């Protein structure tokens, strides 16, 4: 038996086969045992049939990304081998029903299990086949059955009959595989290293939990992949956390409702993907004019237009930053991973309220929908009202003679504001240029004054971000000692971190720079960081073709990356793939 620090499992099958649930149950079992795990889906835009795939990679150390080598392949259809043959090697083990899946690649080790026959014999519903597969894989890998069953139980929590049937199916799969005299040596994971209280969560869910923590009171959205799961979670919060969640009739309505809610003095947000975000742009610009902390979550998928609806991309960095007509400040953050998504969501709520500007959370489908085991989120986070005065404080001040002006010109551009309904105060917001009272004005000196008041904030926001927040993260070897440096953002950093492990073995030192706050672009911290990488080859790694982060850095700072390594087929890099790409670029 070969001991390993990580194992990768692929479960492939038609949509509706439950293969994604198989992967999630396995990932959770690994987490219960004390391993790190990630789970990644790849599915077409349809409901039944087609081919979907789910990967789980688990290990003793932090897992950043999938690898290009899959150890166990569960195939509910033959397409699994056709589509993913490139990651299946001679020591990969195939788990399949020999009566259904007949064309197995010759070089693969075989662990057949007659799913349908076992289901029939035991009077189990066909839908439980995916848990039978979980049992079979667990037996192959020598996972303790009781922990796997605990994961099954959690998956179907609240549904006693379903739990019983699925546990039975899982146990039958486990016992069948354990009793087979297989002439193969499945890999074994090294013993886990305990790492404290942990959870398993997607980027969308982490943002949603951040919204709950940050006392968001209204979420309005229109369904669009891959942002819909955020809406699905938030509707549950209607009953559980007193958050008004509304499925709007369009992205335009969603953004308008969220903006109007902000205007009354509550925290509100919306979420969408590229096409929906385009529809929201007019409202985003209006939020800029109103100086309102509207938050938009943009879950990116490949474009242009409908593109590939269920896949991942990072094509909207420049679009996200410059979205909305006219000039106005906004804050754009790209969380580093699922754990970071929670903390940055809470932080962005505070920041946008402090500065009275709209904010955008840029995530891609890979972050939005992939699961990761992360340390349990902390509860003790500050929630700050920023420029808002509570109704009672404002009324007290007004009684003492304070004159409320919703757009009062101040040194840093931020005007204090009050909840609509405050006695003696009127909130007037105009999408047209306006004076300090919020009354329309096209007079040149007013336009000058108000335009500059709004734009002045950008300088102060940048100062605040660079001084008080982690705007850029560096990983890997110190940049001064690196042979190559990756400049990246969002989920593209994950493959970079895995690539580093491979390059270490080749004796190549990789440094990684991940920009978290993309706008206002943290130019001083960026310059300081990149000055440590002087004369080193710097590659941008992003899921786009232009190298948009490189273009942005160049625009703001003049810095020019050596080359761009992009991937635009909707599927994220695997660690070794990227490592090889870096090596080939270094040889050029």
């Amino acid at each position: 038996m070969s001991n390993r620090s990580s194992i990768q499992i692929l479960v492939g099958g038609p949509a509706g086969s439950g293969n994604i649930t198989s992967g999630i149950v396995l990932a959770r079992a690994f987490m219960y045992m004390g391993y790190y795990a990630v789970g990644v889906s790849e599915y077409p835009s349809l409901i039944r049939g087609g081919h979907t795939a789910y990967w789980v990679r688990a290990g003793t150390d932090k897992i950043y990304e999938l690898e290009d080598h899959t150890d166990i392949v569960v195939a509910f259809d033959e397409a699994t081998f056709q589509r993913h043959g490139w990651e299946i090697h001679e020591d990969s083990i195939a788990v399949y029903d020999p009566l259904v899946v007949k064309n197995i690649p010759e070089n693969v080790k075989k662990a057949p299990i007659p799913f349908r026959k076992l289901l029939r014999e035991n009077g189990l519903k066909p839908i439980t086949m995916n848990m039978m597969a979980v049992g079979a894989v667990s037996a192959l890998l020598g996972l303790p059955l009781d922990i796997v069953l605990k994961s099954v139980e959690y998956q179907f929590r609240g549904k006693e009959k379903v739990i019983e049937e699925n546990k039975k199916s899982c146990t039958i799969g486990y016992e069948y595989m354990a009793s087979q005299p297989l002439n193969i040596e499945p890999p074994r994971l090294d013993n886990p290293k305990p790492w404290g209280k942990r959870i398993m969560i997607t980027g969308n869910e982490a943002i949603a939990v951040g919204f709950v923590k940050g006392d968001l009171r209204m979420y309005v959205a229109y369904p669009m992949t891959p942002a819909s799961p955020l809406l699905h979670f938030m509707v549950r919060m209607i009953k559980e956390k007193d958050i008004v969640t509304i499925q709007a009739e369009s992205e335009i309505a969603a953004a308008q409702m969220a903006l109007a809610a902000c205007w009354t003095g509550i925290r509100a947000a919306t979420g969408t993907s590229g096409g929906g975000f385009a529809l929201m742009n007019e409202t985003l610009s209006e939020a800029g004019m109103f100086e309102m902390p509207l938050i938009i979550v943009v879950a990116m998928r490949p474009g242009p237009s409908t593109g590939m609806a269920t896949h991942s991309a990072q094509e909207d960095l420049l679009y996200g930053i410059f979205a909305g007509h006219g000039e106005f400040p906004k804050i754009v953050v790209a969380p580093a991973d699922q754990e970071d998504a929670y903390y940055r969501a809470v932080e962005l709520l505070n920041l946008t309220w402090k500065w009275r500007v709209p904010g955008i959370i840029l995530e891609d489908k890979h972050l939005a929908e992939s699961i990761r085991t992360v340390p349990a989120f902390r509860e003790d986070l500050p929630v700050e009202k920023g420029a808002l005065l509570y109704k009672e404080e404002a009324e007290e001040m007004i009684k003492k003679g304070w004159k409320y002006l919703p757009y009062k010109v101040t040194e840093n551009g931020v005007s204090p504001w009050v909840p609509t309904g405050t006695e003696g105060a009127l909130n007037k917001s105009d999408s047209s240029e306006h004076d300090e009272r919020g009354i329309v004005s096209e007079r040149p000196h007013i336009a000058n004054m108000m335009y500059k008041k709004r734009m002045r904030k950008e300088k102060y926001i940048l100062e605040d971000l660079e001084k008080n927040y982690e705007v850029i993260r560096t990983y890997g070897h110190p940049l001064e000692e690196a042979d190559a440096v990756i400049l990246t953002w969002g989920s593209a950093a994950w493959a970079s971190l895995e690539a580093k492990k491979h390059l270490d073995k080749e004796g190549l030192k990789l440094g990684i720079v991940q920009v978290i706050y993309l706008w206002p672009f943290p130019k001083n911290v960026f310059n300081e960081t990149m000055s440590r990488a002087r004369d080193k080859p710097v590659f941008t790694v992003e899921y786009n073709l232009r190298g948009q982060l490189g273009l942005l850095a160049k625009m703001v700072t003049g810095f020019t990356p050596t080359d761009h390594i992009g991937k635009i087929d909707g599927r994220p890099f695997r660690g070794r793939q990227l490592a090889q790409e870096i090596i080939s670029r270094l040889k050029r």
Partner: protein
Amino acid sequence: MSVYRQPVSDTGAVITWCPGCGNFGILRAFKKAINDLGIPPWKVVVVTGIGCHGKFHNYVNVNTIHTIHGRVAPMITAIKAANKELTVIGLAGDGDQYAIGVGHLPHIIRRNPDVTLIVHNNSVFGLTTGQASPTSEKGQITRTTPWGQWEERFNPIAFVLSQGASFVARGFAGDVDHLTWLIKEAIKHKGFSFIDVLQPCVTFDRIHTYTWYRERIYKLEETGHDPSDWHAAMSKAYEWGDKIPIGIFYKVEKPTMEELLDPIKNNPPLAYIHLKPKKIGDLLEKYFSLTQ
């Protein structure tokens, strides 16, 4: 030759509507209605769209939003959701509500927030200098229909009635007293109230003049019309041309958004509750497989 001196509004902003514009009548009726009902200005919200009506907010001392074209309905819905204590009134134009923003109409009706939507219906796009609107007459000559409008006229009353709006009325900008009464009834009505206001555009519409309307208009309440009879309301909605009914077409009590959504129903106005970080530990346990 006399020079027109533009009047100054309550806020000090100069009123820039054309002399004789139907908007003046709506402004008078609105202010009178709010005064009569005795609602303090800080508890009133007016949201306007884009167009000639969309200057209204500058002329009234209440909370106001001047939003983008066509989006008054989603805004007033959300404002009521966030602060159920406010009297929320949306003002839209016919281009605003029946062209670019018509997609929001069925949905505000389905949600039934306790708000009022008043459409300043002058049958043309005024502020963009006189193009055809959805309520232009068939055959009407406008800047975009030099050979006469070929599209059929949109029927706002029938449209909102068909979707089950809980208060449906039509007013006339030339009859301020009647319009004041309608606005008061609409505000007092619990649920979504809709008033289509016939408003002459004295500059760009040669057909729908004050005289044209006065010759045709009659009041439903003077005819014994029963506003609880949806079928009668629907047949009145199709009356247009020689006879044009104004008044309350239909009125019904239905549960409101504020009664149907727990976070609104079970709490004081959300906008008045102080910010407080919420506990998330229970969510981690319930949804995210928290380990011990």
